[in-house]
C-alpha cells in the first residue's frame, strides 16, 4: 500500500486551483452564495451513488443483462424501504465491455467523474484483476460479484471485497464429498485449458483425493476447440464419474458429442451450471444430461421446499419458477450467480449504516464495518442462503447446491454445509493500511 511518505507532490498551481474550488464549495455549502440555496439542508438526502461495473457487451453480456435486472430490483426494494441511512441509492452503470482495460477506466470514471461512493458488480475474473489495482489506488471500495478466488488468494488489496458470493475454491472443494460418497471414486476431469478450468483442475483434484478418490485423467480442452470427439477416447474405461466444466458457446456441442460417444451406457456425469447459465435446459442436445448432476450457486427452478426469501427475490427480479424471465420464457436467467448482486447491495447498505457512512471520507470506515461482519442469516437480504463472512480474507462462504437433471428440469439433490466450503486463510487484508 502507498506509504504516507510517498504521498504525491501536487503541483502548486493545481493545488491552488483546488483550494479555490474548495473555498467556493464551502461558501456555497454554507448557503452564502445567491443562487445556490439550501445545499447544506439537501446534503442529508443526497443519494448514495453506487458505480455499477456491468458487462453489457462482450463475452459476459448474458450475465450482465441479469446482473442489471437484479441490481435494479434490489435498489427499488432498498429505496422503498428507506434507502441507506435515509438516503436513496442511485446506480451509475457503466459498460466495461467485459474487458480489463475498459474495466479499469470505468472504475476511474466512478471515482473521479461520477463521484461514486463505492463501486460494485464485476463478474469476470480478468476484469476484476484489471480493475482492482486502480480501485485500490483510488481508495474506492470495490465490491465484486465474481466467484473468482482472486480476492481470498490475497492477490488484490484492502479496497476489494467479495462478500455477496462464494468463490470457486470453496465451491469446488465442497463438491468432493458428495461425488465421492454418491457417484464414484474414480473421476476423469474435462475442463477448458485456461485459468477458470485450471482452478477446477487444481482445487477439485486436491479435495477429491483428500476424500480417498482418484483422478484418472485430466483432459484440458483448448479454448478455440469447436468439436470434442477426439478427446473422448482419452477417457479411461474404468472412469466412474466425468467431471466437466466446459463454458462458452461450444458447450451444447460438447454435451451432444459426449452423448453420441457414450450412448445409453455412460458413467455418472457431474458438471457446473456455469456451462449452462442463461441456456434453456430444453435446448436440443441437452437431453443427454438427463440423470446427471450439476452444481448450482442458487437453484434455478423453484423447488418444492422453496423458501419465502427465494420466492420474494424471484418475484422482485421478475423470474418465473423455471428460472426464466416472467415476460419471456426463452430468456433464461443466470440464476446461479446473480443473487450475488442482491446480497452485495444489502451488505453495502448494512456496512454503511453500521459505519454511519456520510461521505467518501468514510470509505475506510465502511470497509472496516464490512470486515467486522461474520454471520449473515438466510433472509430477504440473503435469499440464496446463510453465509459466513471472513473479514480477513474479504471472502464470504455459504451453502452450495447440487441438482439432478430430471424431466428436463433441475431438482435439488443435495445442499452442502458451509463447513464443507471452508479452507485456511491465505491472506489477512486487515493488516494492510488504508
Amino acid at each position, binding site marked *: 500500500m502507498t506509504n504516507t511518505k510517498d504521498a504525491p507532490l501536487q503541483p502548486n498551481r493545481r493545488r491552488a486551483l483546488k483550494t479555490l474550488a474548495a473555498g467556493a464549495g464551502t461558501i456555497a455549502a454554507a448557503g452564502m452564495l445567491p443562487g445556490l440555496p439550501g445545499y447544506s439542508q439537501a446534503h442529508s438526502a443526497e443519494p448514495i451513488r453506487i458505480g455499477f461495473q456491468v458487462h453489457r*457487451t462482450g463475452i459476459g453480456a448474458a450475465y450482465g443483462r441479469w446482473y442489471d435486472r437484479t441490481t435494479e430490483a434490489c435498489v427499488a426494494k432498498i429505496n422503498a424501504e428507506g434507502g441507506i441511512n435515509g438516503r436513496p441509492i442511485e446506480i451509475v452503470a457503466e459498460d466495461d465491455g467485459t474487458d*480489463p482495460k475498459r474495466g479499469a*477506466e470505468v472504475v476511474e470514471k466512478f471515482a*473521479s467523474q461520477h463521484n461514486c461512493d463505492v463501486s460494485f458488480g464485476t463478474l469476470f475474473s480478468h476484469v476484476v*484483476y484489471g480493475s482492482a489495482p*486502480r480501485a485500490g489506488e483510488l481508495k474506492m471500495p470495490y465490491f465484486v460479484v465474481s466467484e473468482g478466488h482472486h480476492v481470498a488468494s490475497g492477490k488484490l488489496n484492502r479496497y476489494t471485497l467479495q462478500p455477496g458470493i462464494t468463490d470457486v475454491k470453496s465451491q469446488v472443494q465442497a463438491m468432493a464429498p458428495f461425488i465421492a460418497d454418491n457417484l464414484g471414486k474414480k473421476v476423469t476431469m474435462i475442463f477448458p485449458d485456461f485459468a*477458470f478450468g485450471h482452478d477446477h483442475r487444481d482445487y477439485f483434484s486436491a479435495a477429491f483425493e483428500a476424500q480417498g478418490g482418484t483422478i484418472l485423467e485430466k483432459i484440458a480442452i483448448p479454448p478455440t476447440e469447436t468439436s470434442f470427439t477426439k478427446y473422448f477416447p482419452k477417457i479411461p474405461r474404468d472412469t466412474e464419474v466425468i467431471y466437466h466444466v466446459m463454458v462458452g458457446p461450444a458447450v451444447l456441442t460438447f454435451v451432444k458429442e459426449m452423448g453420441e460417444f457414450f450412448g445409453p451406457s455412460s458413467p455418472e456425469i457431474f458438471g457446473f451450471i456455469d456451462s449452462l447459465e442463461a441456456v434453456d435446459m430444453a435446448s436440443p442436445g441437452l437431453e443427454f444430461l438427463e440423470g446427471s448432476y450439476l452444481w448450482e450457486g442458487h437453484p434455478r427452478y423453484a423447488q418444492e421446499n422453496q423458501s419465502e426469501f427465494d420466492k420474494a427475490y424471484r418475484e422482485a427480479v421478475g423470474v418465473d419458477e423455471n428460472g426464466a424471465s416472467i415476460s419471456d420464457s426463452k430468456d433464461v436467467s443466470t440464476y446461479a450467480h446473480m443473487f450475488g448482486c442482491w446480497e452485495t447491495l444489502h451488505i453495502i447498505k448494512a456496512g454503511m449504516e453500521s459505519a454511519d457512512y456520510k461521505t467518501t471520507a468514510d470509505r475506510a470506515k465502511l470497509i472496516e464495518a464490512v470486515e467486522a461482519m461474520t454471520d449473515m442469516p438466510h433472509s430477504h437480504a440473503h435469499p440464496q442462503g446463510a453465509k459466513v463472512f471472513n473479514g480477513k480474507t474479504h471472502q464470504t462462504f455459504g451453502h452450495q447446491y447440487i441438482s439432478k437433471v430430471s424431466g428436463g428440469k433441475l431438482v435439488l439433490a443435495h445442499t452442502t454445509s458451509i463447513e464443507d466450503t471452508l479452507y485456511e486463510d491465505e491472506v489477512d487484508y486487515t493488516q494492510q493500511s488504508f
Partner: protein
Amino acid sequence: MSGSITTPTNNKAKALGLHLLIIGVLAASFLILPDYHSGIIARVLILAIYAMGYNLLFGYTGLLSLGHALFFASGMYGLGLAMQYLHVSPLIGLIAGLGFAAFVSAVVGFLALRTAGVAFMIVTLMFAQAGYLTILLLGEYTRGDEGFVIKQSQRIVAGFDLTNATNRYYVSVLLFAISLLLIGWIVQSGFGKTLVAIRENEERARMLGYNVQLHKWLAVVISGTMSGSAGAAYALLFGYVGGTFATVQYSIFPLLYVLLGGAGTTIGPLIGALFMFYLIDISSQFTSAYLLVAGVALILLTLFAPQGLAGIVRKRVIRWLP
C-alpha cells in the same frame, strides 16, 4: 538562405518544434485537467506509443500487420513475469520487457517477411493467435486469460511511486516524449526515408540498391519493440498483466488509431488514440452499441478523409507535417 524557402533542415526544425510543443502542452495539461481526464490521458499516451510503433510499420513502411498485440503482450509479459517470478526492480523489468519484445519481433519479422501483402497480414495474425494460445497454455505462470496484478508495493522506482496519479502522468508523458522524438528522428533520417521509398515502390528501392528485406526487418523490430515498450509501461503504470491484451482486438486497436489519426504522420497515432477513446467513452453514455458508433465514424472517415485527421492537416494546412 531566404526565410521563404522551405528546406529539409527547416522542416526538421519545424517538426522538432511541433513535437516539443505537443510534449509541453501535454505536460502542462495536468495542471488544469480534472482528475478523471488526466488519468485517461496517461493511459491514452501509452496506447499512443503502441500506435506509434504500429505506424512505423504500417504508415511509413506500408506493411499491414494484424498481429501487433503479440508485441504489446511480449513487452507486458516480459516485464510482468520478470517482476513476478524473478522479483526484479521495475527498471530491470522494463528492460526485460523491451528485450523480450525485441526478440519476439525479430523472430516474427524474420519469418513473416518471407510473405507480402495479404499473406503478411494473415501470417502476423496467426503468430499473434499462437502467442495468445501460448499465454493460455502456460497458464500456471501467466495466469492465462485471468492475468495477474503487479502490486502497488512493487511499482516504486527509487522511492518514486508509480501508482501516484501525478507521477504516473508525468512518467507517461516522459515515455511518450521519448517515443515521439525517436519516431520523429527515425522518419526524417535516411533510414526513415528509405522505408517510405519501400512503401511507395519496393521494386524501385531495390533497384536503387537498398537492402529492402533488411530495412523491412529492422522496421518490424523497431515497431515491435516500441509496441512492446507500451505493453511493459501499461503493466507497470496500471498494475495488470493479462492475456486479453494478446487477443486479436488489441491488434486491431492500433490499426484503428492510426487510420483515424493519420497513417504516416508522427502525431496521427496520438490523435487517433485520443479520438477513439473519447468517442467510445462519450457514446457509451448514451448507447450500449458504442462500438457501432466507432465503426460508423471509421467508415465515414475512410470515405471522406482517407488520410486520417492529421493527414488532412498535412494536406491542407501544414504541408511539412512529418
